[in-house]
């Protein structure tokens, strides 16, 4: 009964567009619910390992992975590798994302530019960028350049496509309105075209984040002397299954973190949109 009193006293504070106001106790449950499945899986995994049903050579127990985590953390290798991989991912995202964004905007605004470059970009896009690894190693060796090149290339296309699509689909009537009220060039772009394209650009960004990690994992496994992919690959040579699994979990955590940041940015930038209003 008290739970309902709380809800009716302050109904507006927590009211969302989708769900009716919920009492405090149930909000907690809502947050935990998405993690229930992974938690149960880990518990079952631990149980089966302890019972000896799963060979540690195939799959180490969660406690072994946790031990590997502590060991790697204390030696400093983990933080170093995470920092290296994170920096690579960020650099690739910035370089590829910027190029994709600029090309998308330019081709969205200018018909001439679109006719000049769009076909070429679409042709490049159809080549799986990971197929270029042999060529990239020949060009850059296994240095930073090869990883930067591949991640940038992977990130570029989803950002380009979605930016282009977003700019092209900005409401014509709003653009006409802007022109009637004397907007042109940069003002029109800043006040009408860019905000109009932003939802689509964010879709591109989130898609690009997935490709960014994928590219980085593959290129680090094949051609690197540091980073999480390298850590996993090295552990494989020494049959350290626990470190391999640990690397996978770290990728999952980093991927989730990147998505959470992107979502927060999206929510913040698109607060005008009823979909994102609380």
């Amino acid at each position, binding site marked *: 009964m008290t739970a309902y009193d709380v809800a009716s006293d302050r109904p507006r504070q927590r009211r969302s567009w989708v769900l009716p106001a919920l009492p405090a106790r149930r909000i907690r449950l809502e947050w935990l619910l998405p993690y229930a499945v992974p938690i149960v899986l880990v518990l079952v995994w631990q149980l089966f390992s302890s019972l000896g049903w799963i060979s540690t050579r195939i799959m180490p127990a969660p406690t072994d992975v946790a031990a590997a985590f502590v060991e790697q953390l204390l030696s400093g290798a983990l933080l170093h590798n995470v920092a290296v991989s994170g920096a690579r991912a960020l650099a690739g995202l910035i370089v590829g994302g910027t190029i994709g964004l600029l090309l998308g905007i330019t081709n969205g605004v200018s018909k001439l530019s679109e006719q000049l470059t769009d076909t070429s970009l679409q042709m490049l896009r159809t080549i799986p960028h990971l197929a270029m690894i042999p060529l990239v190693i020949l060009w850059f060796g296994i240095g930073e350049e090869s990883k930067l090149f591949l991640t940038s290339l992977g990130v570029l296309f989803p950002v380009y496509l979605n930016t282009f699509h977003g700019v092209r689909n900005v409401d014509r*009537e*709003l653009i*006409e*309105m*802007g022109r*009637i*009220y*004397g*907007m042109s060039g940069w003002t029109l772009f800043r*006040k*009408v075209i860019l*905000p*109009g394209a*932003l939802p689509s650009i964010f879709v591109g960004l989130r898609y690009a984040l997935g490709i960014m990690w994928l590219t980085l994992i593959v290129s680090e496994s094949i051609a690197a002397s540091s980073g999480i992919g390298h850590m996993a690959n090295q552990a494989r040579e020494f049959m350290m299954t626990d470190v391999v699994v640990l690397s996978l979990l770290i990728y999952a955590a980093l991927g989730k973190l990147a998505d959470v940041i992107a979502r927060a940015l999206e929510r913040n930038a*698109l*607060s*005008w*949109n*009823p979909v994102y*209003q609380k």
Partner: protein
Amino acid sequence: MSGYVSRFERRQGTVEPLGEQGRTVSAAATEAVSIELRRVEQSFGQNRVLRGIDLDVPAGQFLAIVGKSGCGKSTLLRLLVGLDRPAAGSLRFADRSGNTVEANARIVFQEPRLLPWARVVDNVAVGLGQVIDKDTARVKALMALDDVQLTDKADQWPARLSGGQRQRVALARSLVSRPGLLVFDEPLGALDALTRITMQELVSRVWRELGFTAVLVTHDVSEAVHLADRVIVLDGGKVALDLEIPTEHPRRHGDPDLAVVERRLLDAILG
């Protein structure tokens, strides 16, 4: 609701109606312009949409242009606000002393066309056009919002407003620069019947208070008759009928005199 006079009060005579003579022109208002069209023609390819329009609209008049779809009313509207140039003929705007001036024309569309990512007050400030400092822009925008009684929604997102409120914001955006000529393109077509009536009263009141020249393009004859001093019927790219409506403003819905005028116009349009 300050400054808003209900129809009931007006009928009871408790509030003096602002007639044609009693119009108050705010100090900030741009002077209303008169419009002079001489043998204006416009064609798209082989299709002659306007075939020689001669029209004089005195400053401060409320003119309605009605006609069937494809009669050329939207084309004429685009000429008036300077979106297109006429293929032939001349178009001139003049102030009350007869000097040729820039019209400073504004348009209210059928859809509000608000920027969804800008707050209501910033949407209104779009109407100021030229770059001025933010504080002045906000003050002016708030004043225009006051004209349409929406100051309390100034910091809302447009998505949170009702259809009628959005159209009021659009009206405020067109009023904020105090235009000499305001053109309405089916401004209430997308609203429900009751909101339309409220909006008509608002448009009428704002026009009486600010004194701009108004041109309403519509296919709703009853709306034209309710709001305008004068209605012209376009047919086949020519003025088929030009009718003054002397009834005093503000007008009541269901006035029998207006019903007679409405019948006449409908007969002219439907042939």
